């Protein structure tokens, strides 16, 4: 999955054939180096990666609106509280050097493992991800 392509994509409940929201951002767990869910606007703002039926070209599908839920403490809570969309954020190396702005993020469709970060057009290996906060995305230098 590419975070930039997912942004704005409708979330479709295939049981009720109803749109239950739109993807706002990916939720990152930097310690695990994974996309753990998608942030969706609304009362239940988290769609865990495990609860996704398919990442289609025109919709992210789920089986039942209850696939969406409240954020759990940790990366989900931080992402929702801070509206932490990693895209567009400053990327800092852990030696204190700014590398640019995060343009895109590519992760494995099945388990969410972050493969590549695109920073000012340059690819950075996903396993260099260290943290994401309100100020910056931090990667190993």
């Amino acid at each position: 999955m590419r975070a930039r392509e997912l942004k704005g994509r409708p979330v479709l409940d295939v049981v009720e054939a109803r749109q239950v929201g739109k993807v706002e951002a990916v939720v990152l767990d930097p310690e695990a180096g994974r996309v753990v869910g998608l942030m969706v606007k609304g009362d239940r703002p988290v769609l865990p990666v495990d609860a996704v039926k398919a990442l289609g070209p025109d919709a992210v599908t789920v089986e039942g609106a209850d696939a969406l839920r409240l954020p759990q403490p940790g990366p989900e809570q931080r992402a929702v509280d801070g509206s932490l969309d990693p895209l567009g954020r400053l990327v800092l190396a852990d030696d204190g050097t700014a590398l640019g702005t995060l343009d895109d993020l590519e992760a494995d469709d099945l388990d969410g493992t972050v493969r590549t970060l695109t920073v000012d057009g340059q690819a950075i290996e996903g396993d260099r991800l260290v943290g994401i906060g309100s100020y910056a995305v931090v990667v190993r230098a």
Partner: protein
Amino acid sequence: MNDVLVRAGDLIGRPVVTLGGDRVGELKDVVLGLGRGVLVGFTLRNPGFLGGPRRETLPWPSVHAVGADAVMVAGPDAFAEPQDLAPDGGHETVDLPLVTDDGQTLGRIVDVVLETGTRAQVVGFEIEPSPSLPSNGHRLLLPIDAMAAASEQAVVVPASVRHFVRDDLSGFGAAVAGFRAMSEDAR
């Protein structure tokens, strides 16, 4: 990765960022410990235009890296009370006279030079030279190593440092390396 030499004065206002990506403060000033002329930490202010000074300090061992764009710390618990920086709270060396161990006052300290990167350390002082030193009125840079002694009255350096005086940062890295190699040989 290139380690870069910077004047501590140029670090003021640089954001302090956790590895988790949150900005937790800005550098206000450097604090040097007495006895060995080492950097013990930084004082802080709150981020932003109206950011006031902070009581907590940032001890040097808690600094993950000093970079061109940010000072990195492991987490928000990197800070400490001022008295935890050094037994005496630490001192600024700016304005102290820099004296050689054979008794010549080289000048007055105006700034501290740090080597930055993931391995950061104090490598020298910038001085306003004494009239006795040929300098054409320029400020001068002098390397130090762990042998430098400091008190609230003066900082003392080996007389051999005279051979490694420079007037700009670009040639100073080589001077630091040369001075340290010579100090090693002398031991």
